[in-house]
């Protein structure tokens, strides 16, 4: 694990991996979207409307998965002081927030024709909105000059914030079980799926496709942060030489 915490070694792997993740991710995503829109039948009750789940579910998964990895990165940064972990956390925040926003937007668009409302303050929706705000707070806390000051990694405060925010993830997950909610219960659990196999398989494609795309974005952003740090370090050296 220590070996990959070295930025040079990380770059040697990340650079060739990025186009593969991006390419395969996009292919799976397009295939899954086409299958979901054109190949499989609509839902018995909701008809064509339910097809939005092929975007909504992966968005929710990545919004929540994003914060989970961000919190793990925060822990690694806090305990082992691996600078790469902090860089990863900063790289995850923006795509994580984007997918959370996409989840809320597609959910709202789905809610209007099925439930009859764009937005309700039920447990699932409210806790997901809290996740969006947590991302915004994290980005504000670690963005701008702050990242440069920390050498691209996280301040202790930001790492603690990442860990504390993780408490929201199980709350989102359990919100439809603990509380009466407008949002239906979980379809996919350890006991199986209540989405019929005929409708389920394109979801596997888009889920994997969006996840690979997410990975590619994170790697690109990590490389960019590392490059920024190197530029900053070189400029500092140059300035020192002149003095």
């Amino acid at each position, binding site marked *: 694990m220590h070996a990959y915490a070295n930025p040079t070694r990380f770059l040697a792997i990340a650079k060739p991996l990025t186009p593969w993740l991006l390419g395969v991710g996009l292919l799976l995503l397009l295939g899954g979207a086409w299958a979901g829109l054109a190949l*499989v*039948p*609509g*839902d*018995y*009750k*909701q008809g064509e409307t*339910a097809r939005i*789940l092929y975007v909504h579910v992966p968005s929710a998964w990545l919004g929540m998965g994003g914060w989970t990895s961000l919190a793990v990165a925060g*822990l690694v940064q*806090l*305990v*082992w002081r691996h600078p790469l972990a902090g860089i990863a956390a900063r790289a995850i925040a923006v795509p994580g927030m984007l997918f959370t926003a996409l989840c809320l937007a597609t959910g709202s668009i789905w809610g209007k*024709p*099925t*439930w*009859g*409302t764009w937005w*309700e*303050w*039920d*447990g699932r929706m409210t806790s997901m909105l809290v996740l969006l705000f947590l991302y915004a707070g994290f980005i504000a806390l670690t963005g701008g000059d702050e990242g440069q000051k920390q050498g691209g990694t996280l301040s202790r405060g930001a790492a603690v914030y990442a*860990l*504390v925010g*993780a*408490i929201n993830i*199980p*709350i989102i997950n*359990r919100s439809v079980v*603990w*509380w*009466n*909610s*407008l949002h*239906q*219960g*979980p*379809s996919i659990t350890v006991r199986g799926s*209540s*989405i*019929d*196999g*005929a*409708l389920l398989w394109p979801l596997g494609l888009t889920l994997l496709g969006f996840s690979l795309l997410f990975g590619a974005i994170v790697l690109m952003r990590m490389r960019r942060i590392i490059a920024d740090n190197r530029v900053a370090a070189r400029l500092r050296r140059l300035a020192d030489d002149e003095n």
Partner: protein
Amino acid sequence: MKAKHQRLILALVALAGVAGAGVLGASALRDEAAYFRTPQEIRAGKAVVGEPMRLGGMVAAGSIERQADGVTIRFVATDGKASVPVQFTGIVPDLFAEESGMVADGRMRADGTFVADRILAKHDERYMPPQMGEMPKGLAKAAPQG
């Protein structure tokens, strides 16, 4: 003990503390964060006549009656253990149907009828092709896929 281990233990203890606080908070909210009340809760006396509230339940089979004015409906909301008659004037969502979930905004009237100002449809977590949805529940489960 190395500093690294000390930090790990500290972080894990803090994390456990935060998680514990979160669980306590969530369970304290169990009642308050509910989006709606069930017919059973209303029978247990949790509804105050005339106060705004939400009622959620299944629309009982065969219970929807359209009134003479053409825009008012009456139906029975049930959770399997208790049921409440509901009256609503207006347009319901497309998915509003008998033996399907709904959530109504409104208030209890003294005679025990829930008068709704707005009705939302709730759907369950099952998704399947139309042909399977038309089969009886047990059959749909046993039907071959694809």
